[in-house]
C-alpha cells in the first residue's frame, strides 16, 4: 500500500444513464498509474474488446499518476488518455495519447486519480468536477464553440479566478472547502470532435493536446463536449523532504541554467539548438522571439518549460509538431495563425499536416476543380494564409475535400484509390498504421519497430534526442559532436543496462539481437515510466548529460528514487521494466482481440523500397569502430524485418507464427485471466 501519491479513488461516469461511481484506486495500484491502470480498467469494464471506437461501450480514460500534481520534474502535469481510437488504419487499435498542462494535477486536487467515461449522453453534456463533487451539465450552450471559447465559457460557468486579478475563489459556501486562485482545468473538443473527425483532438488550456488516436471524435460520439476539474485538496507525499531534495538535485545538476548556461546555442534566438541544451521555450522550434516578445511556459511542476506564450496571444503553448503545421509560408505571424486555428478547430496536426500531399496531387493534375479528385480549395495559394485557413476549416467542418479528410489522410487516400501507389512511392509517408512519418523508419528503428509492434507512432524522444539530434545539430553547424559515438553509446548502455550494440544503427546493427533487446527495453521503459508514471518523453529517460563534469545521465537511479519518495514503495529499476512489460502485454492482448496478427505488422512499402535521401546522423559500428553515419541511401529489408519480428516475439515470449502471447508468458506475469479471454477467442499463442 502506497503512503503517498494517490488520492484514493477513480471516477467512473456512464453517460448513458448518468450514473457515476467511485472506484477505489487500491484495486488498480499494482499497475502504477496512468496507462497501466487505464488498460486494466479497460480490460475489466469493456466486455467486447472488438467494438468500434465510436461505440457507446468504448471506455475513454483520462488518468493521472502518483507523480501528478507533485514536484517530480517534467512528470507532474501530464495526463494519459486511453481507449479504442478511431484514427489508426486499417484497424483503429485500442490506443493512447497524452497531453501536458495541469489537468492531471487539478484532477488530483479535486480528489480523483483518474476518470473513466463510458456510454453516450442523449444530448451534448460536459462533466463538472469540483472537490469530489461530480455533475453532468447540459452543454447545449457550448456545443459548436471552438476549443478555446469552450474553455473560457466553462471558466465563467464554474467560476474560475478572474483573469488578471487572480483573487481567492471559494469552491463552496463552507470556508473549509478551501479557496483557490486557479482556473478550472478544462479539456474540450472543437468542431472537429463534434463532427466525429478521425483526426479530432482533445485540447486543454492553450496548446496542450491529446491528438493522436482521434479521442476528440470519441468524446464527440459520447456527446461529451468537455470535462472541467478544480479542487483544493491535498496530494499526500510519503517522504516530502526527500522529494524536495531529489527535485533540487536533478534541477541543479541536470537542468539548463538560464542565468549562466554551461552549454549555449552558438547562434542567438535559435530554438533548433535547444534540442541539445533543452533550454526553456525550445520546442516551437521554427518560431522565434524576434518580433514576438514572449516568455517560456512550462507544464505544472516542469523544470524545462519547453513552450512559449507570446505577446500576440496567438499559438500560446504550441510546442512541438503543431508549430510545424504549415511551413510553406515563412511569415511567422501567418504560421502561428494557422496553428492557432488548428487548435481552435480541434484538429490533430499529425494527420492533417499532409496538405503538401494535396498540393502535389493538385500540381499533378489529379486534384482540383473538375479533376479526378474534386476540390475547390485555393490550392494555387498554397503558401498563403488564405489557403491554409480554407483547408483547416474544410476538414473541421467536413466541407469540400474535408468530407474525405475528416476520416483521416489514410482512409481518404484509400477512398481516392491512391493509398497503395502513394505510400509505395513515398509521396504520402504513412509508415505505420496510417500515421504520418515522424522519425525515419528506415534507420531510427526503435521508432519504426516500436510503432508497428504497437498501436501508433510511438512519439518517445528520450533516445532520439541523443542518438540523432545531438550529432545532427552539431554537424550542421560544422561543430564536433559533444561526445564521440563510442562515448554516447557507452553512456546510453550504462543508463539502460543494455549492450552498446543496442544503439548501433548500421545496416547490420538494426537487425541484430542487441537492437531487438533495445526495442523491447524502449517499449517496457516507456509503458511504465512515460505512459504510466506520466513522465514527459522530452525529459525522460535522462540518458546523457552534455553540460556537466561527466556525461552520466540521471537514469536509471533517479526514477525509482522519485517513486519511493512519493509513494513510499520500493521499486527497483528492473521491477519497473517488468511492470512495463506486463502493461505492454495487456495492451497487446487487446490488440489481438481486435485482430492483430504477425502478418499485419509490416510497414508501408516506401519504407522497404525508397532509400533515404537526406543525411540522418546516427551512431553506427562499422569494422569495430563507432562513428556517426549520415545513413544515406538506406531502406529497410523485408526479409530481415520478418526475421527481426520472429526474434522479437521469441524474446517477448510470444508465438512466432502469430505474434500472440502464450499462456506461460501471461501466467508468469499474473495475467491468467487475460490468457483465458484470449483462449476463449481462440487467439492464445502456441507454446514454443
Amino acid at each position, binding site marked *: 500500500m502506497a503512503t503517498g501519491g494517490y488520492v484514493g479513488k477513480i471516477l467512473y461516469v456512464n453517460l448513458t444513464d448518468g450514473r457515476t461511481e467511485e472506484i477505489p484506486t487500491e484495486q488498480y495500484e499494482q499497475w502504477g498509474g496512468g496507462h497501466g491502470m487505464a488498460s486494466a480498467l479497460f480490460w475489466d469494464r469493456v466486455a467486447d474488446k472488438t467494438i468500434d471506437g465510436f461505440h457507446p461501450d468504448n471506455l475513454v480514460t483520462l488518468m493521472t499518476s502518483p507523480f501528478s500534481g507533485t514536484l517530480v520534474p517534467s512528470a507532474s502535469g501530464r495526463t494519459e488518455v486511453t481507449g479504442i481510437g478511431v484514427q489508426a488504419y486499417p484497424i483503429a487499435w485500442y490506443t493512447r495519447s497524452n497531453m501536458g498542462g495541469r489537468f492531471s494535477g487539478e484532477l488530483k486536487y479535486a480528489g480523483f486519480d483518474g476518470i473513466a467515461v463510458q456510454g453516450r449522453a442523449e444530448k451534448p453534456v460536459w462533466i463538472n468536477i469540483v472537490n469530489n463533487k461530480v455533475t453532468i451539465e447540459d452543454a447545449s450552450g457550448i456545443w459548436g464553440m471552438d476549443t478555446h471559447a469552450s474553455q473560457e465559457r466553462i471558466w465563467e460557468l464554474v467560476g474560475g479566478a478572474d483573469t488578471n486579478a487572480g483573487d481567492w475563489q471559494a469552491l463552496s459556501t463552507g470556508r473549509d472547502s478551501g479557496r483557490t486562485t486557479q482556473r478550472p482545468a478544462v479539456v474540450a473538443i472543437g468542431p472537429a470532435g463534434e463532427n466525429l473527425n478521425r483526426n479530432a483532438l482533445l485540447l486543454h488550456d492553450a496548446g496542450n493536446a491529446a491528438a493522436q488516436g482521434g479521442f476528440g471524435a470519441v468524446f464527440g460520439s459520447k456527446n461529451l463536449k468537455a470535462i472541467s476539474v478544480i479542487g483544493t485538496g491535498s496530494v499526500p507525499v510519503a517522504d516530502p523532504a526527500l522529494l524536495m531534495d531529489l527535485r533540487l538535485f536533478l534541477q541543479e545538476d541536470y537542468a539548463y541554467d538560464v542565468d549562466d548556461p554551461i552549454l549555449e546555442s552558438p547562434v542567438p534566438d535559435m530554438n*533548433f539548438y535547444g534540442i541539445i541544451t533543452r533550454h526553456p521555450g525550445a520546442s516551437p522550434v521554427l518560431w522565434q522571439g524576434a518580433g514576438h516578445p514572449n516568455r517560456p511556459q512550462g507544464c505544472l511542476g516542469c523544470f524545462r518549460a519547453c513552450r512559449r506564450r507570446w505577446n500576440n496571444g496567438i499559438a500560446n503553448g504550441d510546442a512541438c509538431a503543431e508549430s510545424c503545421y504549415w511551413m510553406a509560408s515563412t*511569415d511567422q505571424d501567418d504560421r502561428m495563425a494557422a496553428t492557432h486555428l488548428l487548435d481552435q478547430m480541434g484538429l490533430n496536426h499529425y494527420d492533417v499536416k499532409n496538405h503538401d500531399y494535396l498540393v502535389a496531387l493538385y*500540381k499533378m493534375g489529379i486534384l482540383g476543380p473538375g479533376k479526378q479528385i474534386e476540390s475547390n480549395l485555393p490550392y494555387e495559394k498554397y503558401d498563403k494564409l488564405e489557403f491554409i485557413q480554407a483547408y483547416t476549416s474544410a476538414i473541421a467542418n467536413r466541407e469540400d475535400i474535408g468530407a474525405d479528410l475528416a476520416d483521416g489522410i489514410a482512409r481518404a487516400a484509400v477512398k481516392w484509390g491512391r493509398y497503395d501507389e502513394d505510400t509505395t512511392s513515398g509521396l504520402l509517408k504513412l509508415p505505420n498504421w496510417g500515421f504520418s512519418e515522424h522519425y525515419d523508419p528506415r534507420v531510427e528503428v526503435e521508432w519504426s519497430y516500436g510503432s508497428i509492434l504497437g498501436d501508433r507512432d510511438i512519439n518517445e524522444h528520450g533516445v*532520439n534526442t541523443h542518438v540523432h539530434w545531438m550529432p545532427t545539430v552539431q554537424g550542421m553547424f560544422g561543430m564536433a559532436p559533444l561526445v564521440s559515438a563510442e562515448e554516447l553509446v557507452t553512456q546510453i548502455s550504462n543508463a539502460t543496462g543494455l549492450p552498446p550494440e543496442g544503439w548501433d544503427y548500421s545496416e547490420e546493427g538494426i537487425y541484430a539481437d542487441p537492437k531487438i533487446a533495445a526495442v523491447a527495453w524502449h517499449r517496457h521503459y516507456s509503458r511504465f515510466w512515460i505512459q504510466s508514471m506520466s513522465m514527459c518523453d522530452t525529459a525522460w529517460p535522462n540518458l546523457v548529460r552534455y553540460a556537466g563534469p561527466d556525461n552520466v545521465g540521471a537514469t536509471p537511479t533517479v526514477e525509482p528514487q522519485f517513486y519511493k519518495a512519493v509513494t513510499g514503495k520500493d521499486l527497483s529499476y528492473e521491477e519497473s521494466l517488468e511492470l512495463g512489460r506486463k502493461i505492454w502485454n495487456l495492451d497487446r492482448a487487446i490488440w489481438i482481440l481486435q485482430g492483430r496478427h504477425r502478418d499485419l505488422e509490416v510497414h508501408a512499402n516506401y519504407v522497404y523500397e525508397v532509400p533515404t535521401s*537526406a543525411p540522418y546522423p546516427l551512431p553506427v559500428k562499422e569494422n569495430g569502430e563507432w562513428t556517426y553515419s549520415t545513413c544515406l541511401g538506406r531502406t529497410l529489408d523485408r526479409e530481415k524485418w520478418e526475421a527481426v519480428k520472429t526474434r522479437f516475439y521469441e524474446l517477448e515470449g510470444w508465438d512466432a507464427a502469430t505474434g500472440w502471447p502464450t499462456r506461460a508468458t501471461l501466467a508468469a506475469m499474473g495475467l491468467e485471466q487475460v490468457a483465458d479471454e484470449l483462449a476463449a477467442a481462440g487467439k492464445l499463442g502456441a507454446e514454443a
Partner: protein
Amino acid sequence: MSDGIKKPLPEPDEAMVRHAIRELDFAERLEVHKMNPATGNESISVYKFPAAVDLIFETRWSQVSPQGGNHAGIAWVDLGRLVAWVRDTIGDTDFADALSASTAGTSAYKAQMDAMRPVFMERIAQYKAVLAAHDTSEAS
C-alpha cells in the same frame, strides 16, 4: 573562384528572370528537407524560386537581407541537386556556376549555406532590378 577575385554576375535579361521566378510544375519541384525535432525530417516541395530562397535561407523574398532571415531551424537541400535545379529548371547558368564555385573548400552544411548566401542575394537583387525596371510587382 580560381583567381580569388569575385566577378560580378552578368546581368540577366527580363525573359530569363520571368522564366526563373515562374510557378513550377510538379516534376520541376525542388525537395527541401526541413529538419526539426518536432516532426523529424520533413521533405517540402518547392514550386518557385522565391520559395526556395525563403526556405533555404529562412528569409523572405520581399525582405532579402544580407544576414539572411531568422534562425528558426535548418532546411537541408542536396547542394548538387540545388545547383542542377538552378541550372536546368530555373534556367540560370551563370548563377549555377557561381553557386558551385562559391562552396568550394567548405564542408559543414551551414558553412556552405553561408558561402552561397551572398551569391543568392546578389542574383536576387539583380532579378529585382530587372523586374523593377519593367515596372512590375512580381516581388512578394
